[in-house]
């Protein structure tokens, strides 16, 4: 191609000529052309063109812009529109404040919800291998239901490494997260941790400040979070310092990682130890085969493999190993890989269907859009309602040659002005509210002031909202007929208020639906809270048995605690009362159907456990320390007895084959009311309590009735300190732990309440503005009516009636919407409240009341005006 073919891109040149100051044109064009040819010599024509464009764009600087840009016709018009809009805003300050206030509230909600949604969608994205790391999940069938769990057998990890290594870059096991005691000098701390394989650091790209990816190769090493290192060592370098772990091992600090962000799965982990150390401490774990599930497996896929491919390849790995055992043919365990991208938002399974927090993301996203819609409706209603005031202006503009398109543009400019002002206000509001919002939503959100994308999105958003809010008014106003307006015969007809009425109905429908939804959420929470728990939560303290010494000195602890006078008794149990740490199948009972199975909570307790937590017995008796035969006794809960299909279970014999231990025969000595251990929203698990002492992990301390909790706690702490000087006293109240089961729902409830209130406020603001407008418009009519003898009550009725009808219509429309919506939501909970009709009645009555109050203020004010004053004008 001949050289002469290449010239600077003409479009770029024309653009430059368009905006550049004329006196600079010669030198700048010369410079850019020179630069263009210089670039052309060293690279391609396309690059030179791009380079030219880049240089042109870089001349968009104040000093180089042509004066003309500020002086041409379009610019003047826009300035005029803005000026008129600005003046109109101040002329009707009241309306403008309602408009801007409503819009600002709406926008703040959208900003906060937007930040929240963004935070949810970017969960775990701090990990570089976000797209290739997954977790292995196991499914199985039990009595026709499909369950999904992340607990896996240790043998599986070995098998995957051995025979499936071509699928994975890393196979990482992680034992159950927990807390452990770290001792340093005379100080000791209880901190949360996970034992993991060394490769964890590489797979999850743990941000190491010191140490490297091999930091956990040695079983006696420990990797700390930055804040934990700070707590333990202050400003000293922790590297290769020694820490006492659970009063048992001395570990070397071989790495420190930067604290993980709040929106990541491992955010609470304060240190990692090697999984190998965990196996040294618990050698039994190595011999559990494929049927005892006690760890989690994370994998990083080989880059050539997809999740589907790998899931298909490993699906039957466990089943292949256990299919000879009769029990597992019906369970049929299968495996799949759950990608990290889905951990947070799709982290739950309901009978095999993948759901999770995505429901809430969708829910709040929808609410955000609706609240914005409410604010836009306010703007539309107030603008069109006040149209008569602006009719003259439109008439004049049209008759001196303004086209419809120009008028549309004018009103869109005005709506953009209002939205922009509201946006600035909403930034302030949401900046102020982030603190409260973070508490409500358990987040660490902040407005990203310095993020260019945030501003870009904001600008797009302002434009979109401005167009949405301004669309209807601008088309409506620009369609006025100038001749009729200027002749003075212009009257907006009866029908002109119809769209406005429809919009009000939409607003109140949305608000009422939100309010009903909020009430139902709260009802559901209260309902689940009122479920009988089967033991006494108050005054029950749970203490994890942190070190081996706890087991050796159990009797001493018990005696000494009771001696303090504050403690009634102490009992041991496997796991806290508020959770199930071990569940098993393998039960056989009289009258069992073939293939009938049960997933039982299998809980080891000490004989006095039932007395300490205060079980309620349905039949039979508690374990007794004095009866040796009780060691082969079992206590069942009612759900278990129901599953067995027995009317009376006492004295019956059941056989339990856990597969990982000897088969044993047990005699039922008692039946208790169900104890709520897992989710209060779901049916209780069948449970069996044994005296075998296997895996007990918690002390349950019953505080003597009437004793002061604070002095009991300090006495207990003192006692424990004297027995275990090197172990910090950690405890939890059973009622606190139980209350935490409602955290998620209560959070949703509180957020929903906040949004419902906002929706009502915004809708009422709009109603208030409209009522003021109607009252103002009817000033003369009211004056005449008063003169002729109408009472204030009559006038009030006349002014409020129309609005009340609208709100009533909305209420009727919202009933089916709310009913079906909330019914759908409640389906997620098996233990759920039924929606009572009084909820609708109450909400509708409330909505009517609020609407009446809002409108009445304006109505009464108008009705009490002295007719002499209102009729004198003009």
């Amino acid at each position, binding site marked *: 191609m001949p050289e002469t073919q290449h010239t600077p891109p003409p479009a770029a040149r024309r653009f430059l000529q368009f905006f550049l100051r004329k006196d600079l044109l010669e030198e700048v064009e010369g410079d850019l052309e020179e630069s263009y040819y210089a670039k052309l010599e060293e690279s391609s024509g396309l690059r030179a063109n791009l380079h030219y464009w880049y240089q042109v764009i870089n*001349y968009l600087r104040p000093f180089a812009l042509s004066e003309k840009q500020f002086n041409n016709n379009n610019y003047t018009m826009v300035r005029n529109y803005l000026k008129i809009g600005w003046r109109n805003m101040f002329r009707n300050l009241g309306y403008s404040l309602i408009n801007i206030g409503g819009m600002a509230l709406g926008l703040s909600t959208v900003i906060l919800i937007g930040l929240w949604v963004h935070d949810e969608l970017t969960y775990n994205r701090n990990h570089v291998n976000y797209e290739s790391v997954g977790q292995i999940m196991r499914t199985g069938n039990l009595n026709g239901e499909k369950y999904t769990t992340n607990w896996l057998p240790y043998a599986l990890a070995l098998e995957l490494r051995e025979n499936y290594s071509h699928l994975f870059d890393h196979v990482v096991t992680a034992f159950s997260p927990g807390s452990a005691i770290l001792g340093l000098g005379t100080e000791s701390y209880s901190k949360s941790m996970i034992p993991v394989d060394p490769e964890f650091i590489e797979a999850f790209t743990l941000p190491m400040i010191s140490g490297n990816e091999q930091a956990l190769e040695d079983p006696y090493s420990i990797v700390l979070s930055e804040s934990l290192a700070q707590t333990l060592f202050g400003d000293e370098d922790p590297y290769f310092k020694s820490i006492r772990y659970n009063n048992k091992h001395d570990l070397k600090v071989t790495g420190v990682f930067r604290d993980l962000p709040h929106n990541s799965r491992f955010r609470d982990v304060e240190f990692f130890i090697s999984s190998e150390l965990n196996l040294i401490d618990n050698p039994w774990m190595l011999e559990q085969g494929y049927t005892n599930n006690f760890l989690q497996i994370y994998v990083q896929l080989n880059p050539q493999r997809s999740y589907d491919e790998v899931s298909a390849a490993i699906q039957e790995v466990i089943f292949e190993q256990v299919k000879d055992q009769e029990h597992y043919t019906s369970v049929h365990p299968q495996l799949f890989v759950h990608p990290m991208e889905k951990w947070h938002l799709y982290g739950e399974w309901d009978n095999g269907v993948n759901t999770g927090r995505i429901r809430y993301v969708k829910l709040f996203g929808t609410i955000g859009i609706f609240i914005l819609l409410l604010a836009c409706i306010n703007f539309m209603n107030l603008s069109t309602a006040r149209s008569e005031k602006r009719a003259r202006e439109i008439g004049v503009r049209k008759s001196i040659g303004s086209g419809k398109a120009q008028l549309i543009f004018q009103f869109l400019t005005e709506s953009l002005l209002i939205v922009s002002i509201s946006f600035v206000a909403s930034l302030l509001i949401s900046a102020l509210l982030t603190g409260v919002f973070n508490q409500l939503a358990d987040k660490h959100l902040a407005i990203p002031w310095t993020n260019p994308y945030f501003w870009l999105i904001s600008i797009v958003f302002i434009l979109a909202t401005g167009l949405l809010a301004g669309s209807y008014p601008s088309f409506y106003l620009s369609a006025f007929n100038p001749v009729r307006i200027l002749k003075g015969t212009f009257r907006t007809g009866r029908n002109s208020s119809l769209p406005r009425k429809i919009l009000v109905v939409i607003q109140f429908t949305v608000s009422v639906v939100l309010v009903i939804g909020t009430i139902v959420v709260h009802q559901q929470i209260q309902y689940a809270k009122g479920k009988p728990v089967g033991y006494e939560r108050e005054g029950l303290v749970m203490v994890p048995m942190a070190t081996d010494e706890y087991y050796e000195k159990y009797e001493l602890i018990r005696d000494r605690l009771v001696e303090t006078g504050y403690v009634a008794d102490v009992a041991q149990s496997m796991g806290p009362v508020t959770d199930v740490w071990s569940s098993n199948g393998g039960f056989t009972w009289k009258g069992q159907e073939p293939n009938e199975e049960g997933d039982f909570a299998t809980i080891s307790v000490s004989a006095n456990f039932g007395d300490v937590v205060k079980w309620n017995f349905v039949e039979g008796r508690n374990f007794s320390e004095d009866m040796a035969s009780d060691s082969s006794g079992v206590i069942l809960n009612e759900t278990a007895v129901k599953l067995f299909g027995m009317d009376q279970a006492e004295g019956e014999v059941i056989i339990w084959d856990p597969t990982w231990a000897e088969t044993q025969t047990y005699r039922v000595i008692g039946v208790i009311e169900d104890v709520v251990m897992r989710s209060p929203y779901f049916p209780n698990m069948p449970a069996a309590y044994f005296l075998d002492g296997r895996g007990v992990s918690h002390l349950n301390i019953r505080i003597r009735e009437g004793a002061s909790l604070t002095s009991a706690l300090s006495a207990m702490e003192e006692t424990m300190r004297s027995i275990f000087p090197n172990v910090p006293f950690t405890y939890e109240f059973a009622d606190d732990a139980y209350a935490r089961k409602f955290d998620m729902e209560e959070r949703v409830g509180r957020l929903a309440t906040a949004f419902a209130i906002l929706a009502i406020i915004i809708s009422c603001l709009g109603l208030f503005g409209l009522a003021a407008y109607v009252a103002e418009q009817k000033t003369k009519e009211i004056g005449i009516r008063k003169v002729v003898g109408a009472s204030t009550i009559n006038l009030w009725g006349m002014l409020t009636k129309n609005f009340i009808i609208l709100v009533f219509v909305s209420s009727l429309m919202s009933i089916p919407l709310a009913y079906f919506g909330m019914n759908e939501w409640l389906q997620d909970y098996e233990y759920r409240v039924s929606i009572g009709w009084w909820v609708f009645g109450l909400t509708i009555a409330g909505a009517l009341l609020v609407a009446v109050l809002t409108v009445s203020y304006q109505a009464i004010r108008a009705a009490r005006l002295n007719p002499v004053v209102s009729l004198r004008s003009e």
Partner: protein
Amino acid sequence: MKETRLGEFEEVILLLVGILGEEAYAFKIAAEFKEQTGRAASIGSVHSTLNRLSEKGFVDSAMGNATSERGGRRKRIYTITAYGQQVLKEARDFKMSLWNQHPTLSLDKFSIA
């Protein structure tokens, strides 16, 4: 401390104007800037800086003669004014004095043995 009213970028551009002499026009300065610092600067940003320097009175400019290159368009040639020279010198002296007060990095210790 005397305020020199000279930013880092401005100082470099001013020095380059001095170095380039007759060839000191926006494109050349931008090209030289890249050559010397390895950082790219658009002609627009150089031009805007030159404009500012000239408002402060540190440089003068005049249109050069028309040549056959660049389509016969003339260049604006910049020259440092006496005031500009003085400001440059002050900026240098000021930094030297700071360097000399620096305890561990005093220039004496860097002298080649």
